[in-house]
């Protein structure tokens, strides 16, 4: 009997890890108009906000090159998909394939895409990739457009 319960405990740990891990993999938050300011307010250090799209091949190349760096520089990168939450499945798959699923991930609310873009940068038309660097004082000091 003791062995049965011991096995059950082990199984539970495995299941807990698997389920919670897979849940984390799809933990992409919906980015609404107010989230831009909210996210900046929550940062205590310099960071980069990277906007990308599943339809943008240069974005994928850039994210692939950042993937390793982002693991060494925890909390330095925030990835925001401009695709809209109607494409959540594609966004999630792409993040998984790039091993970025555990990073801070957001996806634009489909209903508010234009409003969000306007709020972030009036000269931005949604072209991707687009990255902004923020300093320790939360100032957006430059736009990185390779």
């Amino acid at each position, binding site marked *: 009997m003791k062995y049965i319960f011991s096995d059950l405990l082990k199984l539970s740990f495995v299941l807990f890890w698997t*389920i919670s891990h897979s849940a984390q993999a799809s933990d992409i938050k919906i980015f609404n108009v107010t989230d831009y300011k909210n996210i900046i307010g929550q940062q205590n250090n310099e960071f980069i906000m990277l906007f990308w799209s599943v339809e943008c091949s240069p974005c994928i190349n850039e994210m692939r090159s950042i993937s390793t760096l982002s693991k060494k520089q925890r909390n330095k990168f925030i990835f925001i998909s401009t695709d809209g*939450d109607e494409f*959540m499945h594609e966004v999630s798959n792409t993040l998984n394939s790039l091993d970025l699923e555990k990073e801070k991930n957001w996806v634009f609310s489909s209903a508010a895409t234009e409003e969000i873009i306007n709020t972030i940068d009036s000269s931005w038309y949604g072209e991707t990739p687009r990255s902004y660097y923020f300093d320790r004082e939360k100032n957006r000091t430059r736009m990185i457009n390779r």
Partner: protein
Amino acid sequence: MSHSFKIFTIAASLLLAATSFAAQHKTKSSTKLVPGCEKAQFKQHCAKTMTSTFDKTGRLWSVWTNGQYLYVNHSNDKGLTFSKPARVNNTAEKISSRNEHRPKIKVSQNGNIYISWTMKLDKRFTGHIRFSKSTDNGKTFSLPITVNDNLEIISHRFDSLGVNESGDIFISWLDKRDKSQAIKAGKKYNGAAAYYAVSTDSGNSFSKNKKIADNSCECCRMSMAFDQKQLPVIAWRHIYNDNIRDHSIARFKDSTTPLKPIRLSHDNWKINGCPHHGPSINIDENNTYHTVWFNNATIKHGIFYANSNNQGESFSKPIQIGNYEHKASHADVISSGKTVYIIWQEYLKSHHQLYMMKSENSGIDWGSPKLISLSKEKTDHPFLVTDHNSVYASWHIPGKKYNLIPLK
């Protein structure tokens, strides 16, 4: 409490916690669909894109997708009501249908209906160019064929479709076969290439694929019009030098000989990325080329219009269209006699706005922009269509009744 029971309790709690955790996060990640179309119902107005064209009798034809199927139907009352849709592909396939990607539809002078689209493959950014036709007035469609003769699992996407007065069908697209070769040879290749194929037998077969140009931008729509000789003139976003993404046009000597491309725009937008914003071209009865495009360079940005009276050898000084601060974007151009129409979208105060502008003298002088429609909901890109009596703006708003607006 016995030791065994304690272990059981811990195990059960862990399982419960994991399940609850998963459920919580699943809710956060739920996918939203078009309002009123949550169950992905089979409804034309639920489609993400709708592309329309008139046949020579004035009947409006539309192509749209539902899941992995393409549908075509028609309207005899300018889009107020539509016929029962006919399915194009009887075997399910992934169809690119979103913003700059969309199935295309053209009707030849003899009433044949031609459809082209991009079939998405499993690997990211890959696809094949597909084609089907109906010769029985849209009742049935032929078994789809793949037009690209390179069948690598690479990008053959962003198709553009045209049929001339003789019934020749041209399809152009963006193709990465040259990039694929370059990578295999350890060389660099920026962007994609513009390719095309032609059918001179009403779409039963297509010619060997031919390259129009190397180094096109890889994620913007192409546009096609026919000149007085009924040869295509194709416009696309090109990559010049170090990621300058301006526009090109290509004319043809004959249906199998594309000429050296000509640079259309000189805005010098440098971006190693995806503008998702292709040009539009139309040719009027005097062989004047009318073009619109978008760029977002530091100095020259917004929508621009230019025309050419010498078959693209030179273009007029571009004029800016719409309000850049209001996100003027996704313009289309069409001509009817000497009258030229441009439509585009803007975004202001939480509304998507559709504007038009008209020239009565082949694009020399222009009237003021007019607001012709607006929507609080997200919209498909606007396009211009003509039944040869009037010009209409086709503006699909997913979840809403189809919007075909006559332009005056």
